[in-house]
């Protein structure tokens, strides 16, 4: 790149914002369309061809609504919470390598960076729930914390397993190591860990739980908690939370792609590029939507039990197994 660094960063930042906004808008459309198809109905069709302008209509509706701060709510935290959910998602995208050169900041602690800013998300939803002064919102805040803390542990254990294989926390280097045919992807590195596909599934489950997606959407369990932490938010306040949910899905799927599915590497060893990254990422995003409309919502205690009694022991086992196998080879 022959642009001066500040200009390049600014351009990347703007591009990132546009990427997140377009994704959030059209993933909502994809979700509604997908939900419709899964349930054998057409989904949105009215606005534009196949309902493609529906996100625009929704956006205009949300923006034109008044943001109401309920009496008794903490006015500052109530307004800051949606931004605190959105900003970390954008920041983490800055270290994700979309292709070999298309990466905002190629830093050597990229992997931990993603988790560090991902963790702020939990706090933000909790703040939103607490600041609303609504009992459903507070129950939801409590659930978000216990759920996200519980699922962060197996996720980090899985990531540590992977780190031992890659030996670097630079996301671009992790992708470069997976060059070649698709059996070089970390997902299929059975020589260092015969349970690698299992770790990927654990990662994916934890990612679903961390982004509060169904079947783990205890934070926004609309059949029991109205809308959980977002109950009191009107207009764009809710809109930002909604967009942030999709932004976080994009971040989670990007990370899964980079760590397990070879990032921007093509599966045939030639012709790597951003297109492969997007293909893999959107395949995962589609799976996320697919899971949501296929599985019913879990109970809260079985959700926590799944993490503490099944996922954590399994990820511990894979961790130890990888240690041993790496020492032997």
């Amino acid at each position, binding site marked *: 790149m022959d642009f001066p660094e500040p200009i390049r960063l600014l351009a990347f930042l703007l591009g990132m914002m546009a990427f997140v906004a377009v994704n959030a808008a059209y993933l909502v459309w994809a979700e509604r369309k997908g939900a419709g198809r899964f349930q054998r109905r057409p989904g949105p069709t009215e606005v534009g061809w196949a309902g493609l302008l529906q996100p625009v209509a929704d956006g205009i509706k949300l923006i034109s609504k008044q943001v109401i701060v309920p009496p008794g709510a*903490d006015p500052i*935290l109530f307004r800051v919470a949606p931004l605190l959910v959105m900003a970390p998602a954008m920041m983490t995208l800055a270290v994700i390598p979309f292709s070999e050169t298309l990466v905002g900041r190629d*830093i*050597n*602690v990229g992997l*931990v*960076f993603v*988790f*560090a*800013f*991902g*963790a*702020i998300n*939990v*706090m933000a939803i*909790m*703040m939103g729930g*607490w600041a609303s002064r609504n009992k459903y919102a*507070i129950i939801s*805040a*409590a659930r978000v*914390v216990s759920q996200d*803390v519980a699922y*962060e542990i197996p996720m980090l254990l899985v990531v540590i397993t992977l780190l031992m294989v890659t030996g670097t*926390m630079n996301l671009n280097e992790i992708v470069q190591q997976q060059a070649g045919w698709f059996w070089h992807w970390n997902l299929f590195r059975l020589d260092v860990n015969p349970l690698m596909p299992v770790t990927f599934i654990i990662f994916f489950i934890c990612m679903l739980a961390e982004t509060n997606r169904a079947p783990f959407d205890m934070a926004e369990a609309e059949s029991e908690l109205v809308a959980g932490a977002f109950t009191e938010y009107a207009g764009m306040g809710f809109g930002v939370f909604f967009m942030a949910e999709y932004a976080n899905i994009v971040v989670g799927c990007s990370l899964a792609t980079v760590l397990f599915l070879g990032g921007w590497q093509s599966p045939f060893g030639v012709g790597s590029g951003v297109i492969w990254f997007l293909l893999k990422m959107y395949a995962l995003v589609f799976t996320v939507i697919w899971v949501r409309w296929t599985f019913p919502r879990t109970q809260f205690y079985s959700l926590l039990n799944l993490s503490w009694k099944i996922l954590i022991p399994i990820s511990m086992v894979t961790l130890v197994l990888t240690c041993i196998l790496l020492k032997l080879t």
Partner: protein
Amino acid sequence: MHDQLFWFFSIAMLLSGLLVILSRNPVNSAMFLVVAMCFMAGLFVLLEAHFLAIIQILVYAGAVMVLFLFVIMFLDLKAERRRRFRILTFGGGIIVAAAFMVKVHDVVEDMPLVAAKGVAGTTEAVGRLLFTRYLLPFEVASLLLLVAVVGVVLLSKRDLK
């Protein structure tokens, strides 16, 4: 650039630190503490301690402050808001803090002004040190965490025997 960022980060950090101890509502204190931690991470980046900066955000913003906020939310702390600061404790606190600052100033005053030496705190460099020279403290730290986990589980049982 380094110098301007230093002034920005440190002034912002000290301001949010001040607001931590002056806010009546503990939730606001906690939020300002998070802000202070983030600016501290900025200072770490200026000191080429990238690993520490990330760990700072991961541990403080992600874990410690979530715990704090969780506890504050579940203890009913409304009565605390109406309290006023007492002159005696307020004055005492300021005097002690000021005395400490004066002592530190005495120490710093005749310190040689050396330029920074280029050592970057990358994960690899810090990790190498951790697993060789500081291996025993590292293991002791892990034991400490285990003890903390057991202690917390015991303490949070409903009837404390």
